[in-house]
């Protein structure tokens, strides 16, 4: 009897040990939460679908890279073209894999639904959201890159995930919502299209020329659009290929849909990336640097022009005055953190080397430099 009790006791201990050791211990898996800090979206290497996310915590002042893979145990599997935070969700445009990812951030980073993909999401570029609707600019299948005839706006119901496609040729790119209107930059047509959100139809357009890229809202009657590299190859010499006369920022009065002001910025970088100050009186742009005559001649006797290093400049939206703030880096994008009153400037040395994000105060004094992944493109704050 004693032996039986003893063996029973051992058996109970052993069985308990088995179940305990087999339990799925979630706490031991690495996890990076992304609250109270800066979320850095990285495009990754060209055509390698290795986009990723880094997170900088305000509290610890430390940066964690490979957030997506750490938290999901799988690769992101696409290049992150852009993203937004809407209703405590991180929404990512997955280029090359043609998908839209919706990631919960509250209570923590979590994926509870599959990405939105399939034949209705082809080459997603940018998005904006209002209420329960997500508006995504998509290039569609491209037969002729100079025309981009199959681009469209995908309107996604965030509850049902149903997609409505509204065709609009011209390579839709940057988007902005002001009141009940959506403004979409048509990269190849040189226009900004206007959509009425109630009817979900395009009702008009504003011709602004060159290649409109990004749009931001200044106030309830003005938006601002960047024009970047025109890729007008018929222009020679090469230094003028950027069609400097047409590069810069356009301020549009949305009450009468006219271009109120064009600020020429001949050095605006290929991405046309910019952000606005908190009072919207200034824009901050990533620029490619002025071209200058070196004074030397080539073997055909022609003047040799070179371009100054890239810089970040401020633009007074009233006077149009351009002031260089920093220069010499491989700047890609600038994002203003209104909560901390700081600028986060992304840099990328090349298409295969990890990049960085540098934090500056409003006087452009460097605060901290963060090492992140390949090709950082955008910083969001949450």
């Amino acid at each position, binding site marked *: 009897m004693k032996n039986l009790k003893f063996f029973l006791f051992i058996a109970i201990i052993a069985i308990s040990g088995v179940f305990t050791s087999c339990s799925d211990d979630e706490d031991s898996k690495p996890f990076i939460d992304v609250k109270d800090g800066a979320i850095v979206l990285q495009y990754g290497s060209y055509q390698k679908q290795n986009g990723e996310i880094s997170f900088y915590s305000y509290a610890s002042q430390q940066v964690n890279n490979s957030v997506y893979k750490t938290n999901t145990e799988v690769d992101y599997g696409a290049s992150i073209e852009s993203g937004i935070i809407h209703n405590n969700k991180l929404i990512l445009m997955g280029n090359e*894999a043609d*998908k839209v990812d919706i990631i919960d951030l509250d209570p923590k980073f979590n994926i509870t639904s599959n990405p939105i993909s399939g034949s209705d999401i082809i080459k997603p570029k940018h998005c904006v959201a209002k209420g329960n609707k997500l508006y995504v600019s998509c290039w569609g299948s491209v*037969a*002729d*890159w100079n025309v981009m005839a199959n681009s469209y706006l995908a309107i996604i119901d965030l509850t049902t995930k149903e997609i409505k496609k509204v065709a609009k040729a011209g390579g839709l790119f940057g988007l902005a919502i002001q009141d009940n209107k959506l403004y979409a930059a048509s990269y190849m047509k040189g226009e900004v299209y206007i959509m009425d959100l109630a009817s979900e139809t395009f009702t008009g357009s504003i011709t602004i020329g060159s290649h409109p890229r990004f749009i931001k809202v200044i106030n309830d009657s003005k938006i601002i659009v960047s024009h970047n590299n025109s890729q007008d*190859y018929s222009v020679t010499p090469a230094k003028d290929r950027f069609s400097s006369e047409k590069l810069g920022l356009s301020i549009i009065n949305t009450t009468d849909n006219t271009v109120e002001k064009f600020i020429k910025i001949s050095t605006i*970088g290929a991405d046309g990336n910019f952000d606005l100050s908190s009072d919207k009186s200034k824009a901050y742009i990533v620029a490619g640097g002025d071209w200058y005559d070196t004074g030397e001649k080539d073997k055909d006797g022609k003047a040799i022009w070179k371009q100054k290093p890239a810089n970040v400049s401020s633009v007074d939206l009233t006077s149009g005055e351009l002031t260089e703030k920093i220069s010499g880096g491989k700047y890609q994008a600038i994002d203003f953190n209104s909560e901390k009153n700081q600028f986060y400037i992304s840099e990328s040395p090349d*298409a295969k080397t*990890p990049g960085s994000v540098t934090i500056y105060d409003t006087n452009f004094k460097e605060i901290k430099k963060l090492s992140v992944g390949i090709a950082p493109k955008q910083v969001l704050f949450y």
Partner: protein
Amino acid sequence: MKKIVIFAILYCIVGLINAQHYKTNDTIRLGEVSVNKNKINYAIGHNKISIDSTLININQSNNLTTVLSNTASVNILQTGVSLATLSVRGVSSNHVAVNFDGINLNSLTLGHSNISDIPMFFFNDVDLTMGSAGAIYGSDAIGGTLNLKSTPNLNSKSEIELRQDFGSFSRYFTGLKAKTGFGNYIFSIAAYNKDHKNDFEVYDNVYDHIKKRYPKVKEENAAIQNKGALLQIFKKGTNSLIFFKGWFEDNFHEIQGTENEVMSNKRHRIIAGYKYNKKSFSIDISPYYVKDYQTYNKNDIIATERFCINSTIKLKTNFGSNIELGGNYKFINPNVHAYKDKKSETESSLFILYKQKITNNIDLSTNFRQQFYSEYKIPLTPSLGINYRVINRDNFNLTLNANYSKGFKIPTLNSRYWGNVGNPDIKPEKSNNYDFGIKSQIKKGNLTSTLSLNAYYLNVNNLIIWITSPTLKPENRDKVKNKGIESSIEFKYNLSDFALIYKGAYNYLKVQQINNNIEYDFIEYSPSQSFTNSLKVQYKKKLYVYLTHNYKGKYYDDIAKSHKLGNISLYDINFGYNLKLIKKYNAKFNFSINNITNNLYEIKKGYGMPGRNYNLGITLKI
């Protein structure tokens, strides 16, 4: 009668292949070729790898990618099933010259060759000279030089060969070879048509977070339709040979990984030549014309035409020396949609190749090439090599070899002129290469064993990489210092009517890459280790079984080590049976099972490769 029929077939096929309509340009474009015919004699001390003839024979309906994938010293980078480039010794595909009869096939715009568009049906020999050989082959020969050879028997015997293949994923191949002769004239043609739907299963890129797996989907945009013809005409004289070769390709493929993008390539390579041979000297004169016409999505044109004339004088002395003096002139004029500053360019070169027999056991070679380019100052590229036969008996021989050579690469047209990112100030890449090798063969009874071991050191400066600053553009940023070992072993055993042949090769690569002043010990897409094995069992000349295994070690796809790839093992098996039919008719049957273990692998992330697949080939020969 048979000869007339064959000649009529030749005429029709050439007409059909060439009846392709494409947009012509109103400006004469001229061409570019490198002289390399039979230069291999002067590449003393280099590690030369001859591709297994069994591999070439069983892959007649395949492309060069399939053959080279089973060669350990060659690293194939496949972007899906329709695009493949090769690299060696850790340098890129832009640093391997791919030559056919003196023509460097590498694209002038991209700098490399898509070897998936090179059909094995036209070639009966392929060899690879490892290391820099700028003196012998000109630009591009930094990592190595691949030579494709197609030389029919120059007798007037008529032959016809028909081949038909059926394979998995809707694969069809039809090929015809014919040869005949009239008096001193020999005519030969090879033509093929290949259609491959490639609707194989791959893992989707989009992870299913609910089912916690990558779902399998069918490839929908990976079809290939290729056709081509190689026409060769020879006229034999007492001491002379006049020849004409025309190689025409019409290649179309859907771009795997995209929704519906397509690419088509039309390529014309036309060579004529006159050779005059006497006992102590010979003269070669060859003009070439090459046209590459590519359209992307039926709109964007990338085209180049090149014309070149090569001339060589070869001298042979009574004191064991061979000298080759030569030169060439090229005119290049591109037509590319993204080049707005179009420029024509000229290139010429003078070279001296010298080989000396020092003793019966020692050969020495020294070669020099000076290339002249309208846009650049090219350095003199010398090379020095030695072969020493330490032991030279019937049943045992041992040879040591060493070589030093320089190489260079003229920047591609894209890196100089593409849109607004082309950099006209970009410098040529330069290399220094050292090789040390040992080769040995032992024969004992029915067993022959061959061992080859070669160590090398290769450094390349001014390596061109594409950077973002803020726009994508090329710059001279990198340098690499690579060293490694290339080894192979072969056992041949004959037993009565059976022959057993085992071949193994192992490749080790150690990289030192300096990118943006940071040092890395790896280079993307290049594994540090790879090996191949093959075993062939042959019964008389009737029946064989051929098993191959190739392994590619792990590698990363970028400097940040975003994806760990590689660690891929693939097994193929091929059965062959030769059947003698009535009179002079012979039939050959090949059945292969490729990727026996059904490994759904990716060479490049996001580009799935086919799993297990089958192919049956039937060849009828008269």
